[in-house]
């Protein structure tokens, strides 16, 4: 009973109560053993893979910087950058249209998102590539009126343009929803404040809403970018010489299927690793106002500016 006496909880009390500042973490031997076992298993697995001749590591090394592979890598990276950039810009436009009160803009954006999210990317790519069978000629014309300009579809739709259009439009549908979610996550009071200060809608969006929405837009966009890198491998079906297509073209000749696929896998992993690092920097940038550091960013500058102002 006496152990429950609250008066004993004072620092000057008996031995059972001591200042937590003197505490230390106990040594956990079970945890150490678990670590050792896992590391041992992992090292063993790595050793087995490295010494398994079926993986053909010498072939992997020999072809890793092969010109065909490297040019395929450039195609994959280029497609990713261009399709992602176009997809993000179009996605932003769609997100804004989707959120507007304008019935027409709203329904057109909804229709676009519904279609491009609802059909497989592979099928979309094949359709774009074979557009000439549906529309032999592409024209700019006044509806039901005269034709202003016209091109042969096959001269416009190359594997490259089909790949860019296919990937970008599909990406736009997903980015639209990601960006819309980000814009919705910003406190309604921010829009209202921007309005009360007489900002135009475009300026409020650009200066106030989007920078705050970025915190919730960046992580899923990083996800999309990584998906996009891998999605570019689909363009091999329309004879676009991307990374996967390049290694395929080599193993069709040498029959070194697994080693060549390993070359592609390692390249994909390398790229996504670099993107992950980039993403964490971008997230840190948009989260800078969240840090609760007491040290002000530029105390010296502020002090001189105050002096200047008081002159």
């Amino acid at each position, binding site marked *: 009973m006496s152990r429950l006496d609250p008066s004993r909880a004072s620092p000057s009390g008996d031995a059972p109560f001591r200042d937590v500042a003197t505490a230390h973490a106990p040594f956990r031997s079970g945890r150490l053993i678990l670590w050792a076992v896992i590391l041992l298993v992992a090292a063993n697995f790595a050793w087995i893979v490295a010494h398994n001749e079926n993986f053909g590591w010498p072939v992997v090394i020999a072809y890793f910087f092969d010109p065909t592979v490297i040019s395929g890598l450039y195609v994959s990276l280029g497609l990713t950058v261009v399709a992602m950039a176009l997809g993000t810009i179009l996605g932003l436009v769609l997100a804004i249209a989707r959120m507007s009160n304008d019935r027409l803009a709203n329904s057109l954006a909804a229709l676009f998102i519904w279609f491009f999210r609802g059909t497989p990317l592979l099928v979309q790519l094949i359709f774009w590539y074979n557009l000439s069978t549906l529309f032999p000629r592409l024209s700019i014309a006044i509806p039901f009126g005269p034709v202003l300009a016209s091109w042969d579809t096959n001269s416009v739709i190359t594997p490259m343009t089909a790949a860019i259009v296919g990937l970008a439009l599909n990406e736009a549908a997903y980015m639209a929803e990601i960006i819309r979610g980000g814009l919705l996550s910003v406190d309604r009071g921010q829009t209202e404040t921007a309005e*009360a200060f007489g*900002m135009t809608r475009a300026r409020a969006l650009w200066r106030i809403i989007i920078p705050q929405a970025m915190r919730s837009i960046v992580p899923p966009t990083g996800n999309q970018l990584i998906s996009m890198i891998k999605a570019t491998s689909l363009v091999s079906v329309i004879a676009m010489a991307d990374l996967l297509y390049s290694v395929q073209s080599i193993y069709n000749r040498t029959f070194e299927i697994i080693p060549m696929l390993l070359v592609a896998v390692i390249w994909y992993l390398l790229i996504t690793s670099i993107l992950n690092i980039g993403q964490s920097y971008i997230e840190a940038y*948009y989260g800078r106002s969240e840090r609760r550091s007491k040290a002000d960013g530029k105390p010296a500058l502020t002090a001189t500016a105050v002096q200047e102002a008081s002159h």
Partner: protein
Amino acid sequence: MSAVQTMNPLVQVRDVHKSFDQLEVLKGIDLDIMPGEVVVILGPSGSGKSTFLRCINHLEAINKGFIAVDGEQIGYRLRNGRLEKLSANGIARQRRKIGMVFQQFNLYPHMTVLQNIIEAPVGIHGESRQDATRNALQLLERVGLSEKAGSYPRQLSGGQQQRVAIARALAIKPKLMLFDEPTSALDPELVGEVLATMRDLAKQGLTMIVVTHEIGFAREAADRVVFMDDGKIVEMGRPDDVIGNPQHPRTKAFLSRFL
């Protein structure tokens, strides 16, 4: 007296009605506010006082009547003898001479205090960054936050954030300042610093409309107290009269809770 009579009211409000769906929140408001006047609007929750304030800069559109600020009808214009709705940009232009302070401060969290204050002067009013910065630092000095220019809003207390919000609204050199319950979201010990700042502004001749529950502030700083209840103005006059000697039973009932 004659000088006052020849002056035009800065704010003219005539028979303003406002409904949200079926609910009529404002049931005919008439009010004239002279330049330099400090008007405090009191009233129980749900009396429509915040809604009325938000109608003045068209954050809420009214259903009937008219509101004019500085001789311009807010939200509409006369064209070929017919009244037409202004475009979003037209309304934005009208709002640029009206400053507003919100209950939840609404500072831009991704910008430093200084960036918050110069955003509108530089981006909307076309001031040079240098002039705007100099002015912003003077305003920060006035609200007693000179050393916080480089801080982010999150690093400030509620009272400090609200004082920055006041400085931000003053930076556009407004003809009219609207305060929407500026102390209601603050801890009791932080209310005083914000009210002191507002009292300062009132003395300097700024035209202010303040929606608040702070009876003490109304008594000391207001030129006129407006008491609203159920979407109508039920009593209005000098603070000593309305607060000290209320006539209407609703005003009496409301004020008795603060005694």
